[in-house]
């Protein structure tokens, strides 16, 4: 039973059931014109063309829905697998294990504004992506997923060619989109894209000619049927018979689908998004979606042509008398498509981008001759070995492998680098790459990473408590021992926090050092209830603060410190100004920091300039300066005072023990009498 017959059966059953119901209702009403009308409509609906139409429409909608859901799964699969190759996790938040991530992307794009830039060629801009999306989905008309999966009544005889014909509409439409976007970069991207796609269609088609010669048919169903022979338990798929062709097809398909290493047209490093740059909102979303639809089509073709399509073990089972073959075939088909897609993702994770001229050079110089050689080899083997038997298979495989080995290890002559000062464009021969170094080592490195535990820290569920946890790195015993040794105890590491500033208001002596040392001037001073009005305490503006820690380092009493609180965001900028009450919140998080003892700078007075304003003594936070009567002062310290100058009433006396080197006295002295001295000094009077 084919897919068509299956859907038709369902449609006929539904229509019959509906028809019975409507008939019963009409008979109950028993009104002659209505009965006649109902009969006429029923006749039209139940007629042959109408049922055909309904069947085909339902088939298309079903297939479209299956593709849609499948694409979402493929996108999820790609993101997760790609993440494993770079040692990460992929999406994990939305839905279980990130399954709904792409739906979230779709909804987001749906809600964005559809902007049409000003000077675009409006009709081309709007219609080209629509046709692009349409043709990319139309390809699935001719791709069978299992036995008997035709959307029409019978299999398309030229199935394979139809797929390629529809596929090839894309370069034309991409070029139009790029041109119509009125953007230099889109234009360049569109040109590059179109060139790449058109060039790579030739090796794509040439690589399949061998398969067609072996299967004697263009129809995809028959090609899959031709792969049903087995060599013992080894199924003789065309991958074995045409290894060179398979490799060529894969490379050309990766280039057609514009995936890395061939995605220069949309390379973010240069052209933002290439020809899609000017599209936004859902238009962009659907274009991105079709890229994956094309990838699905490309992978399905590879599976059908080279991997035996839907064939696999357990095809002969039946359940309750119903042949389960097609359903099992469908499962096998999808498994194989996902495996091929996984290989494409692996390739994407391992290689850099090829430059556009190098890309085209690879196509015309390497892939095209290889395709022709493949055809030549196939024809030779078919002619020399007749019959499709074991010898056939072995002959092919050996020949192709020999050729591939030859290609892997033989390289053309290496040209020396061009002399300095000459242009490397236009006419100079560059060497073509050797396949061996191209593929093996990078693929091996990324493959190793697939089997390691991801190195991603799932913030905020796992915050960094130790410098290393074993979840970070591959869990081999050797490594685990390295990092679990507990070289540091945890408290020792975290002495040096750089988070929010905390304040111990009781210990603050209002020396003003923190405000003066802050490079960004983010500390100001305010009154605090319960303290003397002149003893102000700091207030920090976290919007300006850069958490350098200088205030904590210079505070003489250690009452201002940096804590481990890093989450300080607020919705309003004013909420970021933390007054002393808010700063006291962090009091409990005071760390035990050990700063080295700093050289203390002590003030010294050029006492002959002093006018006795008493500011230094009043402002000194620790009371290290006291004013004593000037007569006593002069006698005590043995200074000769110039009698022509007016002698002030009192002069400042300094006790070095209480001084905290805050420098307030030097700042406030109106006559610049005080200087903060070199650390060897003892402070006091500078005669």
């Amino acid at each position: 039973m084919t897919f068509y017959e299956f859907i038709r059966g369902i449609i006929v059953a539904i229509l019959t059931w509906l028809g019975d119901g409507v008939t019963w209702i009409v008979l109950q009403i028993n009104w002659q014109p209505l009965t006649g009308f109902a009969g006429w409509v029923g006749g039209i609906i139940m007629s042959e063309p109408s049922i055909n139409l309904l069947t085909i429409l339902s088939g298309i909608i079903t297939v479209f829905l299956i593709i849609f859901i499948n694409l979402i799964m493929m996108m999820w699969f790609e993101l997760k697998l790609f993440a494993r190759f770079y040692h990460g996790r992929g999406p994990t938040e939305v839905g279980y294990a990130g399954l709904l991530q792409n739906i979230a992307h779709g909804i987001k794009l749906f809600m964005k504004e559809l902007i049409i830039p000003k000077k675009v060629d409006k009709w081309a801009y709007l219609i080209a992506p629509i046709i692009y999306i349409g043709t990319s989905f139309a390809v699935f008309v001719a791709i069978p997923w299992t036995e008997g999966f035709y959307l029409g009544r019978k299999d398309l005889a030229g199935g394979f060619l139809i797929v390629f014909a529809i596929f090839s509409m894309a370069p034309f439409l991409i070029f139009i989109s790029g041109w119509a976007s009125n953007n230099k970069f889109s234009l360049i991207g569109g040109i590059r894209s179109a060139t790449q796609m058109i060039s790579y269609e030739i090796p794509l088609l040439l690589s399949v000619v061998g398969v067609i010669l072996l299967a004697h048919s263009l129809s995809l169903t028959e090609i899959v049927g031709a792969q049903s022979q087995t060599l013992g338990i080894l199924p003789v798929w065309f991958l074995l018979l045409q290894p060179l062709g398979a490799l060529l097809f894969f490379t050309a398909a990766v280039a057609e689908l514009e995936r890395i290493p061939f995605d220069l047209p949309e390379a973010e490093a240069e052209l933002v998004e290439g020809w899609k740059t000017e599209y936004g909102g859902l238009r962009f979303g659907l274009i991105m979606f079709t890229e994956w639809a094309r990838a699905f089509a490309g992978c399905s073709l590879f599976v059908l042509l080279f991997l035996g399509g839907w064939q696999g073990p357990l095809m002969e089972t039946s359940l309750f008398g119903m042949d389960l073959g097609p359903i099992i075939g469908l499962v096998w088909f999808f498994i194989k498509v996902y495996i091929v897609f996984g290989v494409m993702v692996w390739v994407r994770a391992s290689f850099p981008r090829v430059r556009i001229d190098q890309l085209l050079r690879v196509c015309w110089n390497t892939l095209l001759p290889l395709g022709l050689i493949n055809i030549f080899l196939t024809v030779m083997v078919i002619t020399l070995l007749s019959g499709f038997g074991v010898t056939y298979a072995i002959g092919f495989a050996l020949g192709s492998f020999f050729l591939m080995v030859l290609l892997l290890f033989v390289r053309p002559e290496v040209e020396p680098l061009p002399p300095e000062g000459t242009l490397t464009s236009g006419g100079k021969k560059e060497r073509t790459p050797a396949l061996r170094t191209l593929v093996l080592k990078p693929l091996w490195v990324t493959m190793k990473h697939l089997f390691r535990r991801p190195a991603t820290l799932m913030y905020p569920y796992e915050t960094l408590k130790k410098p290393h946890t074993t979840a970070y790195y591959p869990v081999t015993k050797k490594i685990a021992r390295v990092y679990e040794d507990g070289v540091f105890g945890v408290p020792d590491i975290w002495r040096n926090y750089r988070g929010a500033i905390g304040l111990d208001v009781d210990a603050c002596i209002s020396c003003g050092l923190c405000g003066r040392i802050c490079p960004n001037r983010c500390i100001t001073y305010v009154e605090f209830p319960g303290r003397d009005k002149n003893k102000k305490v700091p207030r920090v503006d976290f919007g300006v603060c850069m958490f350098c820690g200088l205030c904590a380092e210079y505070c003489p009493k250690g009452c201002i410190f940096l804590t481990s609180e890093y989450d300080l965001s607020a919705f309003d900028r004013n909420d970021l100004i933390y007054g002393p009450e808010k700063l006291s919140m962090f009091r409990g998080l005071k760390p035990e920091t050990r700063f080295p003892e700093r050289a203390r700078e002590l003030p010294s007075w050029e006492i002959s300039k002093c006018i006795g304003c008493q500011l230094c003594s009043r402002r000194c936070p620790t009371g290290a300066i006291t004013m004593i009567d000037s007569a006593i002062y002069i006698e005590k310290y043995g200074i000769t005072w110039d009698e022509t100058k007016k002698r002030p009433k009192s002069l400042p006396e300094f006790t070095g023990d209480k001084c905290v080197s805050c420098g307030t006295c030097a700042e406030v002295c109106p006559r610049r009498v005080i200087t903060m001295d070199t650390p060897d000094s003892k402070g006091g009077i500078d005669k």
Partner: protein
Amino acid sequence: MAEMWINLGPQHPMTHGLWDLRVKVDGETIIDAEPKIGYLHRCHEKIYESRTYPQIVPLSDRLCYGSSMSWSYTYVHTVEELMRIDIPEKAEYIRVMMLEIQRIASHLMWLAAYAGDLGIYSMLLYPMRERELFQDLLQSVTGNRLLYNYMRIGGVRNDLPDGFGNYLLKVLDWFEERMDEYEEMLDESEIFRMRTRGIGILSGEKAVNLGVTGPTLRGSGVCVDLRKDDPYSIYDELEFSICVEDGCDCWARYRVRVREMRESCRILRQVVSRMPENGEILSKKVPRNPPKGEIFVRTEDPRGEAGMYLVSDGTNRPYRIKIKSPMFVNMSALPEMLRGYKVADVPAICGSIDVCMGETDR
């Protein structure tokens, strides 16, 4: 197609940092180029004129955020040279350790950005993963992962945690294994070679004439490294070699930086084995104001020769600081490197000189 100017404009995913590169193309070939900078100018030099010497240290970190230890070291060294003070031995060893760790971290970030630009997204993340190790090291010492505020005039801010040397050696062992993996991934990838060999050639003579320094110069065959030619701190007591390559292209510069990372590992091992157990880490004889005078000091930044010219008038604020940034000069050599290559080579060439806009624009 006629010649046209294309703006690889200030808003662009490829440009690391904020600058504008205008290229004049004929079809796909670049005929001329003009980098336009200044989008990140933050008036560092003017701000320094109104800050005291200790306050400038956290600000000098922010000159190049990718290698902030080396910039704050340059500033602190300049002031110390003017003040003519001696630094305690342990502090010198700690400083060199931090500088070399910073060099490795900066080169790893360069490697990640460079490979990411060229399209290998996995190589964007493997060096970043290793860089996390070094950032953890720096965080355990200073408390911050990126802008450290660790150097002080006269020493460093605080001592190393206990057992730091052992931990560092383990990290280095692990790191050197990972370096082999990177070399497998990139050296033996034909596509990477196709993208970088023969691209962006800058001959040794032209490089010297243009004033290019750092790995860009050493990739052109000129053997100049300030750590050997004009040694500062304790570099004259350590054994290491200068990494020079003859290729003059992007591939050579990539090889120079990868080899420099290995040399830094070697230096770090020597420092760990020679570091004194106990010692002062901050000199107590730092005067408040440097004497009047001027001085120019240069150090080997991961990007080249970083210099600071300090003019002091005897007060506690500098009169003028002029910052000589290596990237500013290297970027002026870009048009020379870009001429004759394709537009698609622009990320390869611009990435290979390790652009950091923080120090270009200051």
